[in-house]
């Protein structure tokens, strides 16, 4: 498949669209990438001008990052999928790789990104009745101000 590719620090990064994700992952699985190592997300709200994005890829607020590995050729590949801010939906990779079940639940819990066709999309790290998605940039860290700091520190 023809997706924009970037080489960064010796690692190959592909940038598929959301609609191309399942096809690309199926193709990679047939090529020999037999394990999804990691599935995570990044919220680029405070850093919209991110690095290493090819020109024909439209940057969105969220990005889902999937890392895969091919044990035979010892090669790794990373997929960065741009997800829009309103109604973020990504197709779930569960049918190809059941190991993504917990990882997608964590991304849902921390970022609020929905995975369509996921068997059990519920909160995994926070309590079930928690409101908000903690790793989003507009969710405050909830720090209790420390009494002795007279001036407002950077953090």
């Amino acid at each position, binding site marked *: 498949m023809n997706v924009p590719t970037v080489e960064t620090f010796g690692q190959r990064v592909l940038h598929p669209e959301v609609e191309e994700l399942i096809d690309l992952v199926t193709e990679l699985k047939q090529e020999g990438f037999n394990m999804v190592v990691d599935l995570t997300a990044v919220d680029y*709200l*405070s*850093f919209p001008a991110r690095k290493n994005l090819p020109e024909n890829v439209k940057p969105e607020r969220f990005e889902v990052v999937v890392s895969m590995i091919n044990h035979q050729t010892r090669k790794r590949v990373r997929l960065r999928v741009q997800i829009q801010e309103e109604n973020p939906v990504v197709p779930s990779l569960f049918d190809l790789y059941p190991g993504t079940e917990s990882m997608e639940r964590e991304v849902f819990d921390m970022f609020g990104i929905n995975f369509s066709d996921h068997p059990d999309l519920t909160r995994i790290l*926070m*309590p079930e009745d*928690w409101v908000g998605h*903690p790793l989003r*940039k*507009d*969710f*405050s*860290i*909830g*720090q*209790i*101000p*420390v009494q002795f700091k007279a001036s407002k520190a950077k*953090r």
Partner: protein
Amino acid sequence: MVRVPLIGDLAKVNGEGLEGLEHNFITARIENLVKWSRARSCWPATFGLACCAIEMMATGAAHYDLARYGMEVFRASPRQADLMIVAGRVSQKMAPILRQIYDQMMEPKWVISMGVCASSGGMFNNYAIVQGVDLVVPVDVYAPGCPPGPETLMHAILTLHEKIQSGELTRRREENSGGAAIEISESPREIIKPVELESR
């Protein structure tokens, strides 16, 4: 050498007679006997959460032996335990369970808050960690450290034993209606709101 006291002699006989008993054995008050035995056989409940749990297990192992204080039996059931050593960081999801275990323990019960995460939230001043378990259960001894080494934990345990034996804790509990009751009332001061981070 045991000095046989006069009947009216209720002075403390330190270092003579049975070790650890302040009073002469013949005239010992039952209360002191009870306090002595409570301090000597304090069974901890397993409440190891995170890194401090590993150090708690190390304290119970052969090198830093907790069995010398009679405490190597970590009871799984809270009904059989006297002491809850909260070892590790308490998250928002875990706090109700901590309270439930504490409520299931029988009186008299004591709590040692082990490590900075249990005492004050530690290095994690954020949305996920309860900033000190004394917001959830009443704590008797705080042991600082990240994680506190076995020597620090033993010092905390010995401090607790001294407090049990002197009766200070039971006295305080009676004043506070049993210790298990925590009063929650409206605070007249302004509530501190969490700091909103400015966006970068």
